[in-house]
């Protein structure tokens, strides 16, 4: 125990006495660990941004899309029958999240005049399935489906058309048509490109489109007037598609098409990204380690006389070895702690959502990865041990008599 304390004390003394040299030798290791830890942590956040971005567009893994229509007429099934069949299906198979979306156009009375804008009628669960995170207000909820004033979630371009900067004035907009209705804007999302307005509306809310069959498939933009989306475990997606097509087809006597619509290959892409980041970190760390080794080799030759004197005090070979080695390990471990600390401060304080995600709050913001911090510390210590090995061997092999005379 005393021997260990002595070796540590000796190593620490050496680090303390030769602060400038130690600090210089550690710049490389500090930067390497800092880079590796920061990049690993940032990599996780970038991966999360990528994942959430992909999920906003095409749903979470695995999202199974279902379209049903009469093969003769192309018309969708009766809405009430469809709702009942879907409810029964969801209940029977224990599917926790099922959402619908249909595309149509609506007349909006805006300050610049009435405009026909594309509108997406979605069920509230669509927000969960597509990670819709409003930057202001809220997403649609169940109560909106029975509201007499349709709830709208729009993007910032729409707000601009409406001439309001935010939701503080509780803006409303009149939906035109044969029976106009005043809709309430309940949330703002950051979505779309440039000045393209985007509008989401609760699928069963009051207004001109609430009558069954009101959506004309001829004006719908995609395959059918309404698409059902089911969030299922990825490993069961194939099985679900088969069962859903069979059950709904039999229940409604319609053609049912199913396909998996979430982004494929995302996991592989992210794994490649992480691997590339890790490889870059390792290369930087090796370069930093070479710097420590280089300075360690020069230093140990300058310390030969001191090593000889210590041998005359009774220092064993093992003690000399461990002191030189520990000096390197202590120093690099300290550099590792400093680097990880700086990395945590950096990653926690960078406006990452602004920089990486266009200001859209992440639904699941990853914390600073403990694994990256531990990895950084272990890597720094390991580099110190490896870089200290050669100087320690040289120190042990120095002949005491020659060392004293040196």
């Amino acid at each position, binding site marked *: 125990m005393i021997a260990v304390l*002595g070796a540590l004390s000796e190593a620490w003394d050496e680090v303390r*006495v030769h602060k400038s040299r130690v600090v210089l030798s550690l710049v490389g290791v500090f930067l390497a660990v800092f880079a590796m830890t920061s990049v690993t942590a940032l990599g996780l956040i970038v991966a999360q941004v990528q994942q959430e971005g992909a999920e906003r567009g095409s749903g979470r893994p695995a999202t199974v899309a279902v379209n049903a229509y009469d093969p003769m007429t192309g018309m969708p099934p009766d809405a009430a029958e469809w709702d009942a069949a879907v409810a029964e299906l969801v209940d029977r198979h224990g599917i926790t999240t099922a959402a619908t979306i249909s595309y149509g156009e609506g007349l909006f009375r805006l300050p610049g005049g009435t405009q026909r804008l594309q509108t997406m009628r979605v069920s509230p669960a669509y927000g969960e399935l597509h990670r819709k995170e409003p930057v202001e207000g809220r997403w649609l909820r169940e109560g909106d489906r029975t509201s007499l004033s349709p709830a709208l979630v729009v993007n910032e371009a729409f707000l601009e058309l409406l001439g309001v900067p935010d939701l503080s004035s509780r803006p409303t907009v009149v939906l035109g048509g044969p029976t106009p209705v005043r809709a309430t804007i309940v949330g703002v999302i950051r979505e779309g490109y440039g000045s393209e307005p985007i509008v989401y509306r609760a699928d069963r809310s009051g207004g001109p489109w609430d009558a069954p069959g009101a959506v004309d498939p001829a004006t719908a933009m995609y395959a059918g007037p309404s698409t059902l989306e089911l969030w299922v475990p990825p490993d069961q997606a194939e099985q679900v598609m088969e069962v859903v097509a069979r059950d709904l087809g039999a229940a409604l006597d319609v053609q049912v098409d199913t396909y998996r619509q979430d982004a494929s290959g995302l996991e592989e892409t992210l794994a490649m990204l992480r691997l590339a980041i890790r490889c870059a970190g390792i290369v930087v760390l090796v370069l930093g380690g070479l710097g420590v080794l280089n300075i360690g080799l020069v230093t140990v030759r300058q310390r030969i006389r*001191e090593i000889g004197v210590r041998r*005359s*005090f009774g220092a064993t*070979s093992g003690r000399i070895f461990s002191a030189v080695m520990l000096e390197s390990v202590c120093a690099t471990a300290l550099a590792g702690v400093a680097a990880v600390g700086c990395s945590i401060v950096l990653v926690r304080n960078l406006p990452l959502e602004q920089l990486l995600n266009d200001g859209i709050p992440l639904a699941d913001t990853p914390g600073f990865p403990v694994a990256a911090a531990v990895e950084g510390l272990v890597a720094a210590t390991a580099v110190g041990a490896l870089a200290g090995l050669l100087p320690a061997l040289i120190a042990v092999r120095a002949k005491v*008599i020659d060392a*004293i005379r040196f």
Partner: protein
Amino acid sequence: MSLLSLSGISRRVDLPDGSVLPILTGVDLQLAAGEHVSIVGRSGSGKSTLLNILGLLDSPTEGEYLLDGEPTDHLRARRRSRLRGEVFGFVFQQFNLLPRRTAAENVAAPLLYARGRDFLRRRRTALEMLDRVGLGARADQVPERLSGGEQQRVAIARALVRSPRVVLADEPTGALDVETGAQVMALLAQATAENGAALVTITHDLSVAALAGRRFRLEGGRLSPLVESGALNAATADRGTA
């Protein structure tokens, strides 16, 4: 029983051209506890080699070296190191203080290799030793700020800090002026006597050698008792060649 006993000690070195260089030949020496012995000799006569063998820094090629009656030739490296730290204290001609460490840290350095209380109380013990050599007030000075005499006093304190049974001093006054050298030597003799340690001094200086109870002359690798008139001649000759 002698504390140290050397019988027929020889040390030879193989040279790169295949020849053998004898450094010590048939050296016999006994040293009792608390005794003060001096060895004089010309440069290259083997004085430092003898000191290294005594201090377990080097091993003889032939002969028997007993420490406390125990042969040292079969000691493992680890045991030799431990004995070196526990039994011997070294004073070098060039002081060999650890650079950029304070006087107190230098004196405490050998206690890093001690055990138990000696290790844990090393700072306090070092300060006490510095007080004993009159440098208590300069404990926090680094060697670069100390005079030659002060540095050698720090080195003496360092040699004595583990209460060794033998102090081996290799030209302890060699880097000092005559007056400072005399003061340092007096201090070394006094401090070792107070500690009850034996003192082996290797020197060119006859006046330094004269402080010892027994004096030897090393010439051509052979150790012999110093005859005063011969010693004077040797010292004179050494000064002429130095």
